[in-house]
């Protein structure tokens, strides 16, 4: 059904962004504008998007319809038509529901967090644009429009990570995010082109691709499936393109929350789910995705156990959880993977926002051991942080347990026991490092407790709302074995080719295993860190603390090598060979020109002689060659 509301989901934050940009220019050029104006524009517009989405969702639930909206024909060449068209099917509405809702809460939180910042208005302009880009991505009807949003979130992440642009490190982190993403985007673009080439249709909408997918040769489909996933690797920070994510912590904390919870990093998972009809046909690539996800999950979890920067620990945990999501979507359990995206959005946004609250309370201290030394009295943040840590560790009945367990059960059912094993071990590590964080910050004995209580409502209210989600979101997809209805699976049923059909006893065993593993992780963390002497922090030496030297490896192999090649091309190939060749041709023309110039000596007799010679030549030509 065509509905005029769909476009307003995107337009609302986009208009908010434009308004804020305008006001911000006025603010810096002419006269100061109160922060309230920026904050109101910045938070009302995402809320409008959320309300529209909610309205559409309710209508869709009652009437079982799919929304779409034709805006205009964007490209029309020959018989190729690319329509600017929005698609609001179950998947898109599901995604935009929590993108707008959690995005809105993060916007509210940002009011308190960015209070008094010089670039307050600019921040909200970028922030709204970020949300608008993500919504374009989610509501796109074809991969080309999806790519607009895909690039949009990349741009906004660059702008926001490098928000404090006076600091060189931040700018470098922004560049790194941008460049790592560009590598992925290149893959994505090649994937779309390959797909277009393969299906040979006159439109590129998802429906057309799905209808024509049988025309394509399997090799091309495998290639395009792989290339599209390269794009997802970049956006969703999977091995080997994850390096930007930890550095992206340079931006203000609300950005980290938005990138990690609701926008950028989930885009990769969403894209794979969007192309579910493609990936169903190429199960090898699906398995490959699942393995990449599993190894990313494990790798990031190992690194997270030794990090000391609170935000970096959370960043690695995001990468790890994204690994789980890719296990889900890779194995064909799209709704399961997306359900983890959904629950993760709640608790990860909450963890980041809690971390941000702690960080500003302690005047921008990010090292967990130093935070512990000057612990602040922050009861609400303490409570919500604990909820988040429990949820991510997978303790029932918190939301993280259900989504993670469903993914592990899916891996087990598919016979991917290695992935299952990695997943279980990662769950252990997750529980360990998250509770390490919690115990060090809130529990470990310390002599100095600052009586600093941060009471801004805009910071605590979103946290409390999210904590409800983090606790209860799991019940939306309660598995049948526990007497639930799997509502999310049903809602997204058009995506799934597989269904979980393990016997109840197996499911019970799997659940109990993962609970025991998580508890074991917590226990280890408790033994080691609950009584930890924070005045003797852990050493930050060693291979794990240095993130396996991957950054250094990339620098050595990729950056330095290409620098050397560039220098070689510049100094030898360009200057010596090409310039030498071109310049010698030029020199030849110049010296020839000088010789010709000598004829022009203004000597009348000389000209007359030449005229005569020329006339003779013409006569001879006419007489001999033309026979006149």
């Amino acid at each position, binding site marked *: 059904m065509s509905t005029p509301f769909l476009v307003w989901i995107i337009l609302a934050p986009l208009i908010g962004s434009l308004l804020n940009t305008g006001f911000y220019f006025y603010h810096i050029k002419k006269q100061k504008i109160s922060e309230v104006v920026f904050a109101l524009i910045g938070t009302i517009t995402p809320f409008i998007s959320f309300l529209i989405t909610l309205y559409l969702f309710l209508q869709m639930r009652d009437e079982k319809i799919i929304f779409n909206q034709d805006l205009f024909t964007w490209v029309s060449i020959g018989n190729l038509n690319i329509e600017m068209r929005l698609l609001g099917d179950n998947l898109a509405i599901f995604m935009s529901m929590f993108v707008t809702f959690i995005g809105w809460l993060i916007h509210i939180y940002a009011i308190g967090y960015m209070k008094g910042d010089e670039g307050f208005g600019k921040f909200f302009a970028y922030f709204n644009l970020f949300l608008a880009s993500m919504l374009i991505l989610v509501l796109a009807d074809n991969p080309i429009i999806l790519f607009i949003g895909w690039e949009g979130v990349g741009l906004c992440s660059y702008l926001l990570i490098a928000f404090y642009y006076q600091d060189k490190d931040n700018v470098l982190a922004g560049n790194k995010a941008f460049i790592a993403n560009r590598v992925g985007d290149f893959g994505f673009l090649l994937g779309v082109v390959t797909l277009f080439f393969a299906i040979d249709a006159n439109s590129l909408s998802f429906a057309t691709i799905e209808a024509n997918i049988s025309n394509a040769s399997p090799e091309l489909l495998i290639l395009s499936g792989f290339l599209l996933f390269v794009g997802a690797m970049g956006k969703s920070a999977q091995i080997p393109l994850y390096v930007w994510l930890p550095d992206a912590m340079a931006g203000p904390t609300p950005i980290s929350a938005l990138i990690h919870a609701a926008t950028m990093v989930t885009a990769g998972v969403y894209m794979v789910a969007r192309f579910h009809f493609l990936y169903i046909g190429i199960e090898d690539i699906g398995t490959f995705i699942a393995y990449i996800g599993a190894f990313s999950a494990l790798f990031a979890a190992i690194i997270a156990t030794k990090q000391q920067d609170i935000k970096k620990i959370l960043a690695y945990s995001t990468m790890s959880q994204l690994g789980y999501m890719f296990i889900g979507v890779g194995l064909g359990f799209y709704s399961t993977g997306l359900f983890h995206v959904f629950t993760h959005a709640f608790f990860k946004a909450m963890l980041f926002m809690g971390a941000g609250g702690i960080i500003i309370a302690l005047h921008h201290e990010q090292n967990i051991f130093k935070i512990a030394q000057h612990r602040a009295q922050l009861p609400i943040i303490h409570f919500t942080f604990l909820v988040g840590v429990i949820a991510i560790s997978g303790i029932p009945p918190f939301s993280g347990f259900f989504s993670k367990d469903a993914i592990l059960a899916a891996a087990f059912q598919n016979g991917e026991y290695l992935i299952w094993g990695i997943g279980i071990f990662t769950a252990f590590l997750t529980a360990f490092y998250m509770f390490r964080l919690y115990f060090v910050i809130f529990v470990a004995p310390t002599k100095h407790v600052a009586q600093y209580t941060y009471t801004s409502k805009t910071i605590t209210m979103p946290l409390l709302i999210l904590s409800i989600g983090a606790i209860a979101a799991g019940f939306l997809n309660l598995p049948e074995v526990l007497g639930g209805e799997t509502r999310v699976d049903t809602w997204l049923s058009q995506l799934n080719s597989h269904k979980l059909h393990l016997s109840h006893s197996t499911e019970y065993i799997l659940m109990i295993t993962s609970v025991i593993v998580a508890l074991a992780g917590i226990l280890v963390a408790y033994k080691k860190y609950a009584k930890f002497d924070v005045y003797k922090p852990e050493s930050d030496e060693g291979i794990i603390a240095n993130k396996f030297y991957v950054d250094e490896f990339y620098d050595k192999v990729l950056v330095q090598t290409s620098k050397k090649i560039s220098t070689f091309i510049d100094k030898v190939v360009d200057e010596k060979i090409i310039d030498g060749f071109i310049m010698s041709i030029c020199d030849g023309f110049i010296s020839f020109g000088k010789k010709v110039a*000598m004829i022009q000596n*203004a000597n*009348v*007799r000389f000209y007359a002689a030449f005229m005569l010679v020329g006339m003779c030549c013409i006569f001879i030509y006419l007489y001999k060659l033309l026979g006149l």
Partner: protein
Amino acid sequence: MISLTSYAFVSMILFSIGVIGVIARRNIFVIYMSIELMLNGITLFFVTFARYHFNLDAQIISILVIAIAAAEAAIFLSVIILLFRSKKSLDTDVFNTLTQGENS
């Protein structure tokens, strides 16, 4: 009767003397006279052919040539006077102020 070839031969000799005069001599008056010689050679050719073919068109052209030569003489002589005033010389090699080259 003197043959056509003889007339043609004479007019070619006249024309060639004129050409050589224009190319080889430096005095601008001599060059002018050489140009007149070339014109005379051509005019003689026209007249000969007119008589030979009993066609008066060529006669008209030759009269035209003589008239233009007269007009040309007036302009040429005044130009020579101007050139002489500026350079105090009749040598054509001196009149090379139009180049930007080394000779100027």
